[in-house]
């Protein structure tokens, strides 16, 4: 521990120099924590608004068939790939019927994309219950739930009756049980949900005939793999959100790459800062190291002085940086943006480990040069 004691004393003997480099590391780690958390939260928000209220994988009838059986939902859960703990990647599988209908209100008419199913199942896929802005969640017979965009455009509210022209050619009267806000204008304008029996009747389907099985996964980024696997094993057509949103995903990938680049350059700057400070310190303390070696300090112990200095600077800078990062995230909560940045403990822990590793790696050169220093160089130098 003598190396640690000497390292701490060397740092304390140059307080301004030590404080400046700790501040430098702190700013670097804070940038890493903030930018990383910002991009992660932004992407999580984008993905949530894209797939949080929609199916991740949809199973459609095989070519030549017009419907799938309701039991396909259970088969899909059983046949889906599993995660590392052996659980199916499919968290929810719901049989639904999809149809188009037209709402006509005097001179206005608008097509609606309707999904019919059990209220509980639809809630599991779309999260409707907590996204209702009007009415109460439930789908009794001949009830419909519409989006806020549609409701505002046509002055509809819970309790109103909605005439819908169905594929069967008949016009059905539906009671509006609720109005939802899924956070996407297209969905709020054109999407509607009706009860299972009404959808079966509209499509002239038997009780066990459905248009599709809609599923949500525990890992949204496994959708393509799950879809391919289920299409193969169940002999149906499977679509997934990743394939349908390739542009979004390539945008997110580009964003991640640029975020990683920023973080790498920040860490390189931090590493260079620590390395240059330690190199200067090694030169400043050559005399002390030389005399310590002359009175018997071993090369390895002398080298450890700079490893400890780096560890102390790294620890101080990393802790300060994490604190500053949290402060920035807190400050960002007051910014007028539609999403919040939440600190990810695992990411912050990784940032801390990277910060410490960079600090220790930065000390290798001064530690080695100190380790190799011959005391005679100092003694002869005077």
């Amino acid at each position, binding site marked *: 521990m*003598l190396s640690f*004691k*000497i390292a701490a*004393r*060397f740092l*304390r*003997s140059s307080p301004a120099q030590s404080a400046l480099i700790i501040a430098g590391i702190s700013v670097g780690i804070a940038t890493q924590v903030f930018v990383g958390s910002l991009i992660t939260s932004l992407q999580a928000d984008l993905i949530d608004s894209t797939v949080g209220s929609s199916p991740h994988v949809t199973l459609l009838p095989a070519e030549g068939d017009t419907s799938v059986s309701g039991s396909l939902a259970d088969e899909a859960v059983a046949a889906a790939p599993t995660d590392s703990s052996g659980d199916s990647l499919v968290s929810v599988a719901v049989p639904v019927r999809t149809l188009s209908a037209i709402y006509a209100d005097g001179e206005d008419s608008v097509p609606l994309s309707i999904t019919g199913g059990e209220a509980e199942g639809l809630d599991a896929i779309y999260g409707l219950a907590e996204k209702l802005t009007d009415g109460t969640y439930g789908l009794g017979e001949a009830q419909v739930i519409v989006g806020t965009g549609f409701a505002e455009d046509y002055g509809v509210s819970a309790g109103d009756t909605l005439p819908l022209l169905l594929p069967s050619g008949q016009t059905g009267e539906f009671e509006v049980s609720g109005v939802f806000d899924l956070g996407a204008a297209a969905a709020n304008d054109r999407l509607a949900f009706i009860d299972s029996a009404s959808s079966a009747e509209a499509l002239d389907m038997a009780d066990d005939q459905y248009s599709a099985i809609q599923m949500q996964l525990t890992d949204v980024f496994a959708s393509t793999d799950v879809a391919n696997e289920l299409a193969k094993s169940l002999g149906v057509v499977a679509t997934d959100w990743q394939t349908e949103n390739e542009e979004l995903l390539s945008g997110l990938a580009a964003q991640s790459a640029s975020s990683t680049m920023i973080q790498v350059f920040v860490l390189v700057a931090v590493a260079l800062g620590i390395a240059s400070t330690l190199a200067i310190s090694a030169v400043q303390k050559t*005399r*002390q190291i*030389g*005399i*310590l*070696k*002359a*009175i*018997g*300090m*071993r*090369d390895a*112990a002398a080298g450890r002085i700079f490893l400890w200095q780096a560890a102390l600077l790294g620890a101080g800078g990393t802790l300060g940086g994490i604190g500053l990062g949290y402060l920035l995230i807190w400050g960002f909560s007051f910014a007028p943006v539609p999403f919040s940045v939440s600190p990810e403990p695992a990411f912050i822990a990784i940032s801390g480990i990277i910060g410490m590793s960079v600090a220790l790696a930065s000390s290798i050169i001064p530690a080695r040069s100190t380790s190799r220093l011959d*005391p*005679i160089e*100092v*003694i*002869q130098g*005077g």
Partner: protein
Amino acid sequence: MAELLVAETLGKIYGTGDAATHALTGVSFVVAEGEFASIVGQSGSGKSTLLNLIGLLDTPSAGRVVLGGTDTSALRRKGRAQLRNEALGFVFQFHYLLPEFSVWENLTMPAQIAGQRVTGEDRTRVMEMLSLLGLEGLERKNANQLSGGQKQRVAIGRALMNRPRLILADEPTGNLDTTNTEAVYELFRRINRELGTTFLIVTHDRAVAQQTDRILEVRDGELVQDVRNDYGPPVR
């Protein structure tokens, strides 16, 4: 008395080929336990080179140093560092104290380097050392807060702390005034007498050498004289 130090045909060459400089050639002598000896010579004569070889701070180009029965030519850097810590005490022209540490910490540094815990016995020894050096009450002071003479006395104390068998002093009073110079040599003598510590003092000052029991003279890298002191009048 038992042999403590054997210098055997020591040579040191700096550089190679045409640029080679023979700093020391074929120097041999033996120092017994408890001796109080000096190495004298003009500036550039090779006396400090000799001291650095004996002190295991440098390696000879030829010959070998046997210290306390250990052939140091067989030792690697780690072993030489350990022997420096355990068997040798250094006092240089410059005090080389660690300015970041207190007098107490500077004094206990050799023990800490040896990995020893500072025990009650060590504390007593430090207090005795401070008393011997005339530095009572200064133990908590930072090394930077001392006068030149005080710093050199702390450096002497540090050299003595691990109870080394041999103290090597290279122009130890080169930066001190006459009063402090005399005080330091009186201290060396007292330590030699009371603790039986062996001293080998490098100096260019014959007056200083005259105060030691044995004088080894180095000229142009060779040992030209090795005499017992007859304590004649100082040559100053």
